[in-house]
């Protein structure tokens, strides 16, 4: 997997199914940010002995540029246990640390800043924890809207429970690179690409639910925006029964007044949705791009 193609992404969730795959993607992202002259802050897990030289970014899995950046200070690493101490275990504390790091880097003359963190291994046992998680991620969005900041959140499914994975996709639905599929919110549309199948259905479902919820929240803020979710499927090559059913379930569980509008669906999706008794709140727009 690589994320170093195309324009930089402000707040990207990179999903991988193993540590190795996560490192490959993150190594490419790090190298790109460092090459473009960003100051990079990395939050991750050190081993039991707490030695940075044992972490992969200090070893041969990272690029020469990354290792050199660790020496020069362009790349700073912070161990998660220390981060938890510093932030006091609160979303506000984390936001304060993010903000301080950002402003320190800009004051030092760096023209852009990048932040990444490894899978946090938080179980997200209840709604309160999910809300705190969402608040923390919202802090990144707020900073990225105002400053030249790029954020890469790493989600390794092998080390997280299902609840964490689903909520993480929901919170990050605006910019996701997953295994075989991805999604990005641009120009008022949620643009999905790749193959949507049973293997990624749970993650796609989490992201779809998050996207539907966000449209409702925006509409409820009195902006006059429609709560309809417009999904651009032009980049999707395959949808199976499981993912089509997720679309049906998302539309059925949406409150009255919210529709799921599917633009440029793959050829077979209409047949699939009809087989699943497509509700009237799923609208298919098979015309050209808007």
């Amino acid at each position: 997997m690589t994320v170093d193609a195309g324009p930089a992404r402000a707040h990207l969730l990179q999903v991988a199914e193993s540590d190795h795959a996560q490192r490959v993607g993150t190594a490419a992202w790090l190298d790109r940010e460092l090459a473009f002259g960003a100051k990079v802050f990395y939050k991750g897990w050190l081993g039991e002995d707490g030695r940075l030289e044992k972490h992969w970014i200090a070893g041969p899995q990272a690029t020469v540029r990354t290792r050199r950046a660790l020496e020069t200070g362009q790349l700073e690493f912070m161990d998660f246990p220390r981060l938890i101490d510093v932030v006091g275990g609160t979303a506000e504390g984390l936001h304060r640390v993010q903000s301080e790091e950002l402003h320190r880097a800009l004051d030092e003359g760096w023209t852009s800043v990048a932040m990444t963190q490894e899978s946090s291994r938080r179980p997200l046992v209840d709604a309160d924890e999910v809300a705190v998680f969402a608040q923390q991620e919202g802090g990144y969005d707020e900073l990225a809207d105002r400053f030249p900041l790029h954020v890469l959140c790493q989600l390794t499914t092998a080390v997280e429970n299902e609840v964490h994975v689903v909520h993480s996709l929901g919170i990050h639905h605006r910019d996701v690179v997953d295994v075989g599929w991805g999604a990005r919110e641009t120009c008022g549309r949620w643009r999905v690409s790749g193959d949507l199948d049973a293997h990624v259905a749970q993650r796609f479902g989490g992201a779809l639910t998050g996207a539907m919820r966000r449209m409702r929240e925006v509409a409820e803020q009195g902006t006059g925006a429609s709560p309809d979710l417009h999904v651009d499927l032009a980049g999707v090559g395959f949808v199976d029964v499981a993912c089509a059913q997720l679309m049906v379930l998302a539309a059925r569980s949406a409150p009255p007044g919210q529709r799921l509008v599917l633009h440029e669906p793959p050829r077979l999706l209409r047949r699939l949705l009809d087989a699943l008794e497509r509700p009237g709140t799923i609208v298919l727009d098979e015309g050209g791009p808007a």
Partner: protein
Amino acid sequence: MSPGGPGLLHAAVVAEDPEDLVRLCLPVLDAALAADAPVEIVLDRRGARAFRDARPEAALTLPAPVDVDPLGLGHRLADLPAGAVVIGRSCADAPAADRPVAEDALTLLLADRTLAVLCVYAPGQVEAARAAHPWMLTPYGSVPSPDHRPPATTSPVPAAVLGPSVDTVAVPDGAALAALRARFAAAVRDAGLDGERAEAAVLAAHEAMLLACGVDLVPGTDLPPGEHTLDVRVSTEAVVAECRADVPGGPDGPGAAVHDPRFAHLTRFCDHATVHDDRHGRTVRVLTGVR
């Protein structure tokens, strides 16, 4: 009589000569004689004599092979009492085109019978023997035949008429579903299908693997890890995705698959779909015509 429990033991015995054949068959034959079950030896004079010499006191039935029509064998054997053993080479001597049909008919028609049907093949016929029998009788007992493709109980089309295998894809987990689709799509293109019909065939193959593995239709349920395989068969008439999952006994028990909603869905995207459950797992075939 079948290994591991009641039911049909339909096994091939590949033997060099009558003496070798007797050595291989004696454990099964002796077990039947000990249980007072009938034993039929349907072989030529030399073969029948070898068995008679090995067990001179036993009440063996020795009909002449000329009296047995291989294509009607299943109906005839269905009348035998439980526990009976039949040793013969009627199918092996049948014309090559009839042989797999006759063997698959036995596998299907006698599936619920407690019988041992031991089909004698010459060493030069070993490939045909493996392909047509769920079991092979060896010096170490009965072992599953790795090359056997069971006919589907929902639609008993013998595997031999589905066309030769052109590709086999291992699908060890859900991440490999993408490779299944890519490889099957290539075969579909090579077979001359394109457009929506080709896409539908690929979707049907994908869903067939999920059904073979017993993947619940509840979204979020992934393919269980295992030794699952896609076998792509192509003939001048059709392209077939044969998905085999090693989930012993079938994921939900025999016959349950055709009531699975996923089966109803995948039948919308192919011309014909079949499911076969056996003690080793489930096979789902989806067929799309190329004309």
